[in-house]
């Protein structure tokens, strides 16, 4: 009976998938799975996988989509077949849709690898439906407080999802992720080498984070990203695992080195380095050769709208997307902007948070980030824009020590007005740090601006 119900749900899912191609506004990445899940509870559980199919789940706070994309490309470059949701639909509906897309009418998923990006809150649900061979955790950090509250909530969910047989690939440099390997049989770790002398700039207002095991303070020997680096706990002795796949960034040659081999890359920022490190740990675990790894790195492309460069008149606008309420992504954007030492204008469009109901004005996550890095004399103007929290962002900058005369506040989310404001300055380089939904409105304003200017 269940088999018939499953086949019916699958058929309906496939029909809807076909219809989404011709009906505008209906998402082909979630609707088919969403309806199938309504027809049959625990729908993904009834798919059949080949005996040798490897199932991999990628989860964590940030870097999931990029890591999933990299792993998928690696598997393709290794000339294996793959079923993946590498477009980021990572909850129950999206995953069900992915399985519908890649299965036969009988519900058999034909692929050597199934690589699923899984929202961290959904991991315990998904691992009950589909048993993974490998779980890769990017990091477990402060993220979407309105939904997650605190990292401890997510840690409880991840612990509930991990059973004894799965192989864990964990970030050795992030205390929460690293601690998941405690007492586990099958674990490998990864990390990125850092520079102890460069990264620690002691200041009264600097803080770290609490240890997931004993609650004491975590001390970082170096911090490559926000709360990610080589660490140890002052209380229980939890520390970065020494036996880890560590890669070393080579910014001069735009490459990284791992186990004596150098790999050329396109993206050199620290957050990408951690994705590459996880890729290397995965490749090592699966026995994938270095030629396939380099091929996959060459062919991998990030999703559009995350890091973009746009021209508007004489200005080059470097668009850096952040995930709101998630300090690690804002800090990464700050790090990218500060790595460029040329004279620049920094636009902060942190905006109010409208992802869930009730929408709200949270921007406190900006206080977790280090804006001091901007104060090297290269920023000639800070522009704080957004309908509601622009003055809060200006306060944040002021409290970091930015002179008020260097701050302009424009209480709007209208990019046309931003472009008009930018005309007042001779500086050519602009960094725009903003949230994901604003990319297309920014692009549209720039196109309008270019048309008006006859460019």
């Amino acid at each position, binding site marked *: 009976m269940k088999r018939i119900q499953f086949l019916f749900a699958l058929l309906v899912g496939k029909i809807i998938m076909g219809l989404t191609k011709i009906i505008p506004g209906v998402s082909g990445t979630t609707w088919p799975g969403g309806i199938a899940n309504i027809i049959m509870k625990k729908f993904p559980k009834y798919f059949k996988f080949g005996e040798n199919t490897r199932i991999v789940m990628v989860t964590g706070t940030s870097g999931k989509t990029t890591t999933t994309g990299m792993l998928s490309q690696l598997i393709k470059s290794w000339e294996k077949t793959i079923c993946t949701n590498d477009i980021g639909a990572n909850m129950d509906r999206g995953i069900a849709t992915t399985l519908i897309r890649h299965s036969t009418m009988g519900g058999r998923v034909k692929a050597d690898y199934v690589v699923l990006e899984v929202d961290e809150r959904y991991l315990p649900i998904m691992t009950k439906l589909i048993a993974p061979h490998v779980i890769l955790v990017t990091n477990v950090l402060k993220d979407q407080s309105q939904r997650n*509250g605190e990292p401890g909530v997510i840690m409880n969910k991840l612990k509930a999802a991990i059973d004894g047989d799965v192989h864990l690939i964990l970030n050795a440099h992030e205390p929460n992720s690293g601690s998941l390997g405690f007492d586990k049989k099958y674990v490998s770790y990864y990390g990125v080498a850092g520079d102890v002398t460069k990264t620690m700039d002691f200041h009264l207002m600097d803080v770290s984070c609490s240890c997931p095991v004993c609650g004491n303070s975590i001390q970082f020997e170096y911090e490559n990203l926000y709360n990610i680096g080589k660490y140890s706990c002052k209380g229980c002795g939890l520390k970065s695992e020494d036996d880890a796949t560590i890669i070393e960034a080579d910014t001069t040659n735009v490459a990284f080195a791992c186990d004596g081999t150098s790999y050329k890359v396109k993206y050199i920022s620290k957050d990408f380095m951690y994705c590459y490190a996880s890729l290397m740990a995965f490749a090592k675990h699966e026995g994938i050769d270095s030629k396939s790894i380099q091929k996959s790195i060459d062919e991998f492309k990030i999703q559009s709208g995350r890091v973009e460069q746009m021209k508007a008149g004489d200005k080059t606008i470097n668009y850096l997307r952040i995930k709101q309420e998630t300090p690690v992504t804002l800090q990464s954007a700050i790090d990218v902007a500060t790595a460029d030492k040329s004279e620049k204008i920094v636009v902060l469009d942190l905006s109010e948070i409208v992802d869930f109901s009730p929408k709200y004005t949270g921007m*406190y996550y900006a206080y977790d980030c280090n804006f001091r890095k901007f104060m090297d004399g290269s920023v000639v103007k800070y522009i704080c824009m957004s309908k509601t929290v622009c*003055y809060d962002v200006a306060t944040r900058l*002021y409290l970091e020590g930015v002179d008020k005369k260097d701050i302009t506040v424009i209480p709007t989310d209208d990019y046309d007005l931003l472009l008009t404001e930018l005309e007042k300055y001779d500086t050519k380089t602009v960094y725009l740090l903003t949230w994901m939904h604003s990319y297309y409105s920014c692009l549209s304003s720039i196109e309008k601006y270019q048309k008006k200017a006859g460019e």
Partner: protein
Amino acid sequence: MMLNIAWIYPDILNLHGDRGNMMAIARIAEAMGLDARITKVNYGDSIDFDNTDLIFMGAGQIRDMSHVVKGISADKDAFLSYVEKGGYVLCIGSTGCALGKKLTQENGELLEGLGILDITAKELNRTKMPYVTKEVYGDDIWWTYNNMEILGNQIQRVDYTLGDVKPLGQVMYGYGNNLGGEEGARFKNVLLTNTVGPLLSANPWFGAALISEIMKAKDEDVSIDLGNLEYLEYAKEAAELKKRFIKDKFKLPGIIHNV
């Protein structure tokens, strides 16, 4: 004149950018003609109660509360004596669980607090309100304290029930302690609020009132005039924009609004 602040467990109690409160209080004190001396009290350190005018405890994770209780327990008698003598404490968010009597966790386990505040807490497990997730309620909060309007955010992980303590303020919009219209708690000079934002950076007038109270208790009179505070205009403009934003949400079911 000096304002001595003990910043308790800054690495651990820093869930929602709480260090912003320390950045702000230094500027507010400066604008009031005071020097703020901020001393970090790390886990395992003792608090120098004799040379402290304000103890600051930022918001922490529920998972860390037992550890916070354990850490402060070594100083518990001295802490109680400090409070009895009128010492000031500003505590944010879930860290009230550590100062309170007990926390009932979602799994039914009880955590004994320090008992400094007569409050109890229950970890959220909301099944009725239709917002986001069962473990947390996140929203704006707008409340009054001594005729002063306070605006900020609230990331609530527990419901607080007050015993023999007064609420710190009255909710105009938001969740407050437990959707009952009361915000935070006050016992003698121990102040608990659910407001993040951070509280003092978004509401320098609250910081000024608090500092003024503290200095009066030290027999040192300071002006509450914030005319010298350079970011005051930013804070005022931000508050007005937030009020406008909040008023758009009055139609939402289940949330108190008394504006």
